[in-house]
């Protein structure tokens, strides 16, 4: 198989790679905020449970979580494995990344000086107005470097979908590598991920720059 054929075949899986990537961000970024707020809840039992869930999600392999979400229902309830593997894959990725984002958000929220809340309170901002207008925009600026880190990692983590045989780019590459006994597909995959991340880096850098109008 020529290199060109390999590239063409593997790029057919890029759509699915992108699907995992964008859908995971779409769900995990807001879900992370909900988890962060639960984690910071004044109700002790809520924050304790959330904290435990976060330690499990961060303390066990994503690959294991992928397998659990995809095949767990079959072993537990005898239900069929989802025909479209994208659904369990995105669920597993979103939950896992939400746990990481939650801790990033929490760090960001806790780094905002209490004086910002007090100034808003005295000026008559409601709690929601204070959070949405005063706190959140400052949090977003502060956490951008950490979020970029996670997003870059996510690009590479999409390759883990091969464990549940979801036909994304890396899974296809691995199949070609097996059938052709060639290492070339892995180099192609590496190049794809690298280019993907160069783009991600550029875009995240632009967002950071846009938030650079104050310090």
């Amino acid at each position, binding site marked *: 198989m020529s290199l060109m054929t390999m590239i063409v075949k593997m790029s057919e899986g890029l759509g699915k790679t992108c699907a995992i990537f964008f859908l995971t961000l779409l769900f995990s970024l807001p879900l992370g905020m909900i988890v962060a707020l639960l984690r910071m809840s004044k109700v002790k039992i809520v924050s304790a449970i959330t904290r435990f869930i976060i330690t499990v999600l961060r303390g066990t392999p994503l690959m294991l979580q992928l397998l659990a979400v995809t095949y767990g229902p079959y072993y537990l309830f005898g239900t069929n494995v989802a025909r479209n593997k994208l659904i369990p894959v995105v669920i597993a990725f979103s939950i896992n990344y939400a746990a990481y984002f939650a801790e990033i958000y929490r760090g960001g929220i806790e780094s905002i*000086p209490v*004086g*910002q809340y*007090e*100034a*808003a*309170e*005295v*000026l*008559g*901002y409601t709690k929601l*107005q204070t959070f949405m*207008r*005063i706190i959140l*925009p*400052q949090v977003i*600026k502060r956490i951008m470097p950490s979020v970029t880190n996670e997003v870059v990692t996510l690009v590479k983590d999409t390759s883990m979908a091969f464990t549940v045989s979801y036909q994304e780019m890396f899974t296809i590459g691995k199949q070609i590598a097996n059938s052709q006994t060639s290492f070339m597909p892995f180099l192609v995959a590496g190049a794809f991920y690298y280019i993907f991340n160069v783009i991600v880096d550029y875009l995240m850098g632009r967002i950071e720059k846009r938030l650079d*109008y*104050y*310090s």
Partner: protein
Amino acid sequence: MAEQKINTTESGSTASILSIRGLQKSFDSLSVLKDISLSVDRGNVISIIGPSGSGKSTLLRCATFLEHADGGDILYDGQYALKDGVYASKAELNRFRTRFGLVFQNFNLFPHYSVMRNISEAPILHGENREEVRERAMMLLKKMGLEGKENAYPCQLSGGQQQRVAIARALAINPEILFFDEPTSALDPELTGEVLKVIRQLAEDKMTMVVVTHEMPFARAVSNRVIFMDGGVIVEQGHPEEVFGNPTQERTRQFLRNYQQ
């Protein structure tokens, strides 16, 4: 309905903008305010002096609801915000908040907002007309000597300029009384003058103010009344010339002596 409820609230029977009676506040077992009473009449400037830890800032923070008092009364314009240690409803407290402004020691400007938005957002959120608010903000900036700074961000301003923006922000909601919590303590010495100058100017305009300060000459020059606090109580109060010139309490004398050295 709610408006009516406030009007029928039992009156505190004074003409004072702010009356505080028997205010108490403890942090755990530490009693920070012990039975503080004071009233502020319209157009008056009151300075609160005293050593650190005397409860001055806590008093301001209780008056502005940032700190939850344990007992006593707080009345604005004769209406109870706090009665016998029980606060008015959330909605009522929010209405009280439009009556006062607070200027913090470290400004607490919103760093991601321009000067204009820092000043104008609160009144706009309160439902005021955007254009009117902007006009008022421009007027306030002029008064603060900050013409042309409306599009600047706080990080582009000096400490003294930032504090003057904070004063404009507090004034923008048209408060009846303005509190200052050590407004110059976070400033380089050469910048305190410009901030004290605008406060003095506000005093000349008959703005009602309560100023917690360590600037003794300023307190002496600008206030109608000086309150000396120590250990959570008001030790002495009176006309600045009396308190500074001829204090009756040994504790006051000691404090002022230490200050002059």
